[in-house]
């Protein structure tokens, strides 16, 4: 008798949870049915999450320069097609993949001051330690950064990148407005300042800042640009191919990508 009461009690207390679980399996309303659901303000809280059409509304940035930005975007797009993509393809054709990966790694390793300074400015001393460890391991065991033995050390394998724009974001600086930079592409007022900071912190650029534009010096930043082209063209294509409006696609992707970077 006592057991029966207990079971009954259990059934009653569990009932709401059982039904809430069952309702998950319930079929989603047909599109026509969701047409009767009110707008954002009236149904925001009561609507079942699966019916909510408004949750993806958040991605936006002020774009008062849109006509100019669009022009720059298409200019860049043309430049990528006639210049960057052929260079990228040529580089991929001439240099075997393991060597390309090694060259890519070397330049990423050299960028260490960018990550070190920004992690410090963000007050993230755990990552300062991780980055320093990564740099030491890859410079020594990885032979000047060509290999990435740090990938095989769990504590160093997945350290999020740090850059100046991200530091400004963490300090509470907003994007300001959207800007498409010539050649470099999507950016914002804040991230343009960030790009300048990253440029100054990257040792690859120090030689040309100090010694000027001799051709043998230019070769270093040029290689740095070329080694990154295949992956950058890949990212650009992934964001803009199959889009309805490639300008908007690039802008939305950029804002989301930077928001994620600032949250890491």
């Amino acid at each position, binding site marked *: 008798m006592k057991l029966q009461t207990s079971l009954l009690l259990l059934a009653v207390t569990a009932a709401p*949870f059982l039904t809430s679980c069952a309702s998950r399996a319930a079929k989603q309303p047909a599109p026509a049915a969701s047409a009767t659901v009110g707008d954002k303000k009236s149904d925001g809280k009561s609507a079942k999450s699966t019916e909510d059409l408004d949750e993806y509304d958040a991605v936006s940035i002020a774009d008062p320069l849109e006509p100019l930005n669009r022009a720059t975007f298409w200019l860049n797009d043309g430049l990528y097609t006639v210049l960057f993509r052929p260079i990228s393809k040529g580089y991929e054709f001439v240099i075997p993949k393991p060597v390309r990966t090694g060259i890519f790694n070397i330049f990423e390793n050299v960028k260490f001051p960018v990550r070190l300074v920004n992690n410090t400015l963000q007050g993230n001393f755990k990552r300062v330690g991780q980055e320093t460890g990564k740099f030491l391991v890859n410079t020594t065991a990885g032979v000047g950064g060509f290999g990435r033995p740090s990938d095989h050390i769990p504590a160093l394998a997945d350290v999020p990148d740090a850059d100046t724009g991200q530091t400004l974001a963490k300090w509470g600086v907003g994007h300001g407005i959207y800007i498409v930079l010539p050649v470099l592409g999507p950016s914002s007022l804040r991230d343009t300042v960030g790009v300048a900071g990253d440029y100054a912190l990257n040792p690859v650029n120090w030689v040309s800042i100090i010694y000027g534009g001799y051709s043998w010096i230019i070769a270093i930043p040029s290689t740095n640009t070329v080694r990154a082209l295949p992956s950058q063209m890949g990212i650009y294509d992934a964001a803009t191919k199959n889009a309805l409006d490639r300008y908007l696609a690039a802008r939305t992707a950029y804002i989301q990508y930077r928001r994620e970077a600032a949250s890491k």
Partner: protein
Amino acid sequence: MNLRPLLFLAPVILLHGMACAATTQAEKRLQTAVNEVLAAADRASNLDALQASLRPILLKHISFDAMTRRAVGPGWRQFTKDEQKKATELFTTLIIRSYSSKFTPGERPVITFKTATEPAPGRVEIPTTLLYQGGHYSVTYRLEDSEGWRITDVVIEGVSLIANYRTQFDAQFKKGGANAVVDALSQSVANP
């Protein structure tokens, strides 16, 4: 021994168990989808063949209805049934093409599953890391329990597939309503 006081814990335990059950089911579904996609990618020799073999797999595991509805947003209510159907068909083709083009035949990605979360009942987010062609990427899959667990969004490095199309659909919708959205979709599908 009177165990009755402990019964008050029962709902908590049950709820916890269900949350786990939901994430486990969703994880299983994603694992199946990923395995089938990788097997198809291994077999295909070129992009066209890959796209053809991926289509039935993706149709099975992705809820393109939910995807299209979300990507269009509140304007969806002003679409006629025919326009909704047309938009869903076109968007499906576009997404499958876009997804297939990200594979390079012969290169196998390594996918690591991380701890799944359940942000709301009937919804699960599964973060993963993708190691592909030497790069590390964070890829989060969003799944919903509609007719069984289905993928409804893919978020690559913070960039949500739905959010990306949402901005574009919004612009078209403001320009010329459902018609403009369907036209723009047809144009994108026609011009690879």
